[in-house]
């Protein structure tokens, strides 16, 4: 296996380990909430409907932590920043898929029990599974990139970090808006947009990919010569 492959495997394994702590805890919270909260709409919601938005926040935190944890580790082991960049993007995608699959499996198992719901979020009902999954995977990736941008920005200095927070809000807000992901709250609900989910899904995918591409380019520029601080 080449060095990039090894890096992807190691990043993925490490981040997945973090996910393996988070998902069971989140599942436990979901079960406890279902027992104690008696809201018909809430009780109808599947674990998947709750976990997917939460996965996005988790991936954003992973993105923020990644530069701090893995950049120094990588350069220390003789990996270039370019390998770190490529490895991080591949690992991010892999972890999102792994988390989504695990969320689905947990949701499926819980859905078999009479106490837990099996429906998706209200704002997504009627759209079908494909756009639902696509939208969530792509926007989760956008959250991950936003996390990477924020940490890479602060790695440089305070002002670039603040700039990246602003850019991330715009990117995430745009992603949520076009996919109509009101279930995550925040910017979209505040502005009262309903999203553009009635337009062709291909266009939505393309816009999201462009946003991801822009984020990747900025991240690459930020870490191209990023110093590793010792002491």
């Amino acid at each position, binding site marked *: 296996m080449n060095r990039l492959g090894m890096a992807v495997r190691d990043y993925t394994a490490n981040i997945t380990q973090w996910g393996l702590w988070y998902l069971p805890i989140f599942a436990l919270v979901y079960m406890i909430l279902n027992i104690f909260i008696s809201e018909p709409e809430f009780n109808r919601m599947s674990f998947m409907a709750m976990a997917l938005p939460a996965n996005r926040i988790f991936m954003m935190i992973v993105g923020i932590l990644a530069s701090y944890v893995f950049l120094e580790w990588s*350069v220390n*082991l*003789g990996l*270039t920043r*370019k*390998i770190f960049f490529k490895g991080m993007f591949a690992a991010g995608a892999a972890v999102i898929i792994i988390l989504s699959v695990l969320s689905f499996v947990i949701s499926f198992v819980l859905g078999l029990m009479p106490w837990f719901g099996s429906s998706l979020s209200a704002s997504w009902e009627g759209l079908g599974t494909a756009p639902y999954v696509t939208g969530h995977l792509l926007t989760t990736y956008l959250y991950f990139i936003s996390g990477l941008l924020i940490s890479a920005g602060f790695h440089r200095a305070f002002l670039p970090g603040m700039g990246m927070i602003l850019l991330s809000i715009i990117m995430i807000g745009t992603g949520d808006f076009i996919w109509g992901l009101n279930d995550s709250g925040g910017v979209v609900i505040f502005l009262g947009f309903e999203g553009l989910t009635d337009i062709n899904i291909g266009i939505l995918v393309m816009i999201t990919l462009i946003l991801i591409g822009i984020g990747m380019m900025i991240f690459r520029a930020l870490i191209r010569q990023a110093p590793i601080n010792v002491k």
Partner: protein
Amino acid sequence: MVRTLQLENLSLSIKKDIVLENITMDMEPGKIYGLIGRNGAGKTSILSLIASFRKPTAGGVLIDGRNPFEDEALMPKVDFLYEVDYSAEMETAQDMFDDAQRYKPAFEMEYAHELMDGFGVVKDKAINELSKGQQAAVSATIGLATNSPITMFDEITNGMDAPARKYFYKQLLAANERHPRIFILSTHLVSEMDYLFDEVIIIHKGAVKLQEPMDQLLERGFSVTGTEENVAQFTKGMKMLGTERLGPTRSDMVLGRLNESQLMELETLDLKISPVKLQDLFIRLTDEDREGVK
């Protein structure tokens, strides 16, 4: 295998601070280089540039004539071990060795285990549960066992107790015999480690004050010890590095070499001569209140 490591007019500025200015030096395998300097002199910055942790503002680092920064083939050939805050690190030493083995092709696992036994440190315990000295031993083990052509230790013995330091020094010399490479040791423990150095590089205020083979450097000066009057008479007019007194005995550290007549005068005045110590030379060379050696 690396044949040469060159720093050419290397400069580094961070924000408005000039950290390093016009650093030029050559290094070759099989030698242990002592990089010494006062706090904030720029030692760690030099090592960071060689390890591609930073990009120089001007000039360059050349490994066999090539810039290692972001070079996939050259970066793994450099190992930089420094004091790390492991308080949140739950990996074991063995996990770290496994990482090193995957990414550093010359890493020897068996040798790493031998070294850990020698240090008396367990390899299956979370590193944040080890003492500071034991953590330093893990870093030292990684540095020695990776067999990287350029291995740099920055204050790596901090926290180690005396037996562990002694064991490390012994293993360092042995490692250089087994796999000759460029070792760079940055340290404040000058008097304890000077016997390890083949060459000494003194950094002062971001510039190279001197780079010389150890034996030549120690020939630059001498210490004369005897009675107060005789020593004062003998060293009158000589370039002094310093004076120490203990009761009626005086010891002057002097720069320069002795001629035949001076050697005879030593006997007449019943004075004892000894080589100057690297630590004393270092202190005088970097002492702001005194005139240094050019």
